């Protein structure tokens, strides 16, 4: 059991770390998109 956990933990940690980073950046992208559209006065589409 300990052997399996020790193998899975780094994979899980890596996946979670990358996923958190991607989600945060999607937030940055979404927010910046809103600001850019506001500055240029462009609609949603």
């Amino acid at each position: 059991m300990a052997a399996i956990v020790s193998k899975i933990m780094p994979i899980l940690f890596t996946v979670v770390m990358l996923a958190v980073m991607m989600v945060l950046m999607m937030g940055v992208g979404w927010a910046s998109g809103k600001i850019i559209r506001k500055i240029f006065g462009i609609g949603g589409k």
Partner: protein
Amino acid sequence: MDIPLLGMIYLPISGVEIMAWKLILLGFCVGVIGGFFGVGGAFMVTPALNVFGFPMAYAIGTDMAHIAGKSIVATAKHRKYGNVDMRLGLLMIFGTAVGIEFGANFIMWLEKVGRVDVTVRYTYMVLLFGLSGYMLYEYFKLTKGTTETAKPVSDADTSGLALKMQKLKIPPMIHLKTSGFHMSVWVILGVSAFTGFLAGFLGVGGGFIRMPALMYVIGCPTRVAVGTDLFEIVITGAYGAFSYAMKGRVEIIAAAVMLIGAAVGAQFGTLATQYVKGLKIRLYFASTMLLAGVSVIFKHIAGTYKGVYSSDLNAWVKANPDFIQWAQGEGVKLGSAKVQVRDWLLMNKDAVKGWLAQQSDVFQQAKAMETMWNNYSGYLMLGASVGLSILIISKMIQGVRLEKRLAVQARATAGE
């Protein structure tokens, strides 16, 4: 003066310090270019990071993590604009995966034969110059004389090759709603396997090969090719980022800092595709490929200087007790002896400097020339990414202004 968030940051995994603004700027520029062309942009990021003094052992992994994140942001935006053909993208992932595996195996065979470096570099150059040359020829052919005629060409028609491919009725057929035609599943799998093979063989993400393949072989409109290619880069980039992170080669702080710039840049790049004509996108893409080709020539020159001392250096590494110990433990995962030596050299720059200091002037001069040509390559890509980003954003602003002017005119006409 040290500006918060833009000043010097410490990268804990590689243990070096780097100016944050450089990473944000690079991320932003490649974000604009990636969102506009539908490519990952590793061919620009890696040499530019080299110029910034970023440790090369971590450059590719960090780049992968940043590309995956940036592509998610850009793909989400392209999907909103109806530029992503999900069916086509999902099908192509299968073909690409098989192709990459074949490409990687072909590289291993070439390594055994001892012709890998030359073959890869020349194939890369032929592809870059061939693709850019054809696209430039097409652009000038289509735009010739349009200044005098009333209607300028906005996008190229479906190529002859794509029309032939679309006529192949080998079942099962699939309807690609976003692209607007039917196509045999086998053709899509075959094309994606071929582009995947080239990507695996060259050791690149393959966006710059897939994007033209989607336009000229499958027959997608330019914007759909950009969006669909980005969708694929999300999958391949995420897998690459995971794979490199597991090997401890992702400098997570640097990737996150670059991503801040890239997330904003991708918004500009994606938005610009709505305001720049498809044919112009092809022109800018071809120019980028041309510059990337010149950068590879610089790399090739650097490689010839490296050839002066590399065999002696490799022999020294293989006899080095530190390397032998490392290769028996950590290096086993990497596979071939050549890859082990390459990776050890990347991780032990100081040891290499020490060895070089004891060598003849010829070796030292060759090393200096190699560094110089590598820097030229990096500066060229850095300049190209900054210049292209400015061009793309300025074209976008022009498009927005024109759209507003036309809207005002339309309202005025409706009022009369």
